[in-house]
């Protein structure tokens, strides 16, 4: 009986101490983490829109859309996060689209767990640059082992069709939704 009480006391005290420690570290870390995430988004936005100087955040439903403007306040386009399933894990991207909602300004892969050397090539400039000026209508598609013929086509990475296809699918789905949201 005495031992049981001791067990309860030890575990309770330990739990309380551990909880207190976690509260402390959380209060220290969470603003920094939020800042890191904001920095990351900001960096990606200005990478897609090099002339961008500031942006407004608009929340539509659960998604954020960033209206990016240049130094004269002219609208450069919209940036918005897009994510979905890749070959091995989730792919998180930031997508930039021009104000006409028909041409991509670029994409930036923020987070992915694709196969190194193959699928992970989606994070390279070479792959991402293919999306600059890409037409999104009727939808983005990909070709294999040849140069793209049409303005809405990209070339899939050799040996990593699944990852390339995943990026295209995520983009198409997300762009269709963003068009609806922004036209509301």
């Amino acid at each position, binding site marked *: 009986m005495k*031992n049981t009480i*001791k*067990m309860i006391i*030890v*575990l309770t005290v*330990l*739990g309380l101490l*551990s909880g207190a*420690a*976690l509260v402390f*570290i*959380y209060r*220290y*870390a*969470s603003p*920094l*983490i939020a800042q*890191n995430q904001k920095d*990351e988004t900001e960096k990606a936005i200005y990478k897609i829109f090099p002339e961008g100087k500031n942006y407004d955040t608009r929340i539509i439903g659960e998604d954020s859309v960033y209206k990016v403007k240049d130094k004269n306040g002219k609208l450069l386009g919209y940036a918005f996060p897009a994510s979905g399933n890749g070959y091995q894990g989730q792919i998180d991207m930031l997508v930039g689209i021009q104000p006409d909602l028909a041409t991509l300004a670029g994409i930036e892969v923020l*987070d992915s*767990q694709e*196969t*190194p*050397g*193959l699928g992970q090539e989606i994070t390279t400039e070479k792959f991402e640059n293919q999306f600059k000026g890409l037409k999104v209508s009727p939808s983005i598609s990909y070709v294999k082992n040849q140069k793209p013929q049409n303005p809405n086509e990209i070339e899939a990475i050799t040996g990593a069709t699944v990852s390339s296809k995943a990026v295209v699918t995520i983009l198409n789905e997300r762009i269709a939704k963003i068009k609806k949201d922004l036209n509301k």
Partner: protein
Amino acid sequence: MIKDFIKGLWRENPILVQVLGMCPTLAVSTKAVFGFSMGLATTFVLISSSVTVALIKKLVPHEVRIATFTVIIATFVTCADYFLKANFYSISKALGPYVPLIVVNCIILGRAEVFASKQNVARSFLDALGMGCGFTLVLIVLGSIRELLGSGTIFNYAILGKGFEHWVVMALPAGAFITLGFLVGLFNWINQKWQR
């Protein structure tokens, strides 16, 4: 006393001899810097939990010791995870779920159960430090070999020139198994030479 430290580096090396903690070993040793950060995070958790366990071992009833160890380890792991996220965001992202997964690393619970719950604070500290350093060293070596062959760099410094063709396999899990196999083989070979 010094033996408690040294043994983790070589004779009882957690990876090469005990073959513990294989999940982070194989998963995050793609680059030297990831191996190094993973090793440091693990060492931090290992030392903190071993010292804590050694400090409170007399207060903890035998029946709930594993639960107690787990709570202690989980607390330190969460601290390490938040710290990395707050200050080394890109490394934390690259390590992904493997930092929170330190909590199930057998090396840590193993040292708490086998060593720290029976020894004094100073010896537990040295033991944890030795084990952590041994773990970190092997991760760095593994990460360096895989990074060198997989991307031609070590700690992101270009070693092999631009003409070097990357061995994709080294960045894949298969490369981790092959490299670790060779490392263990080399280790045993050196040990045999020594014993003669």
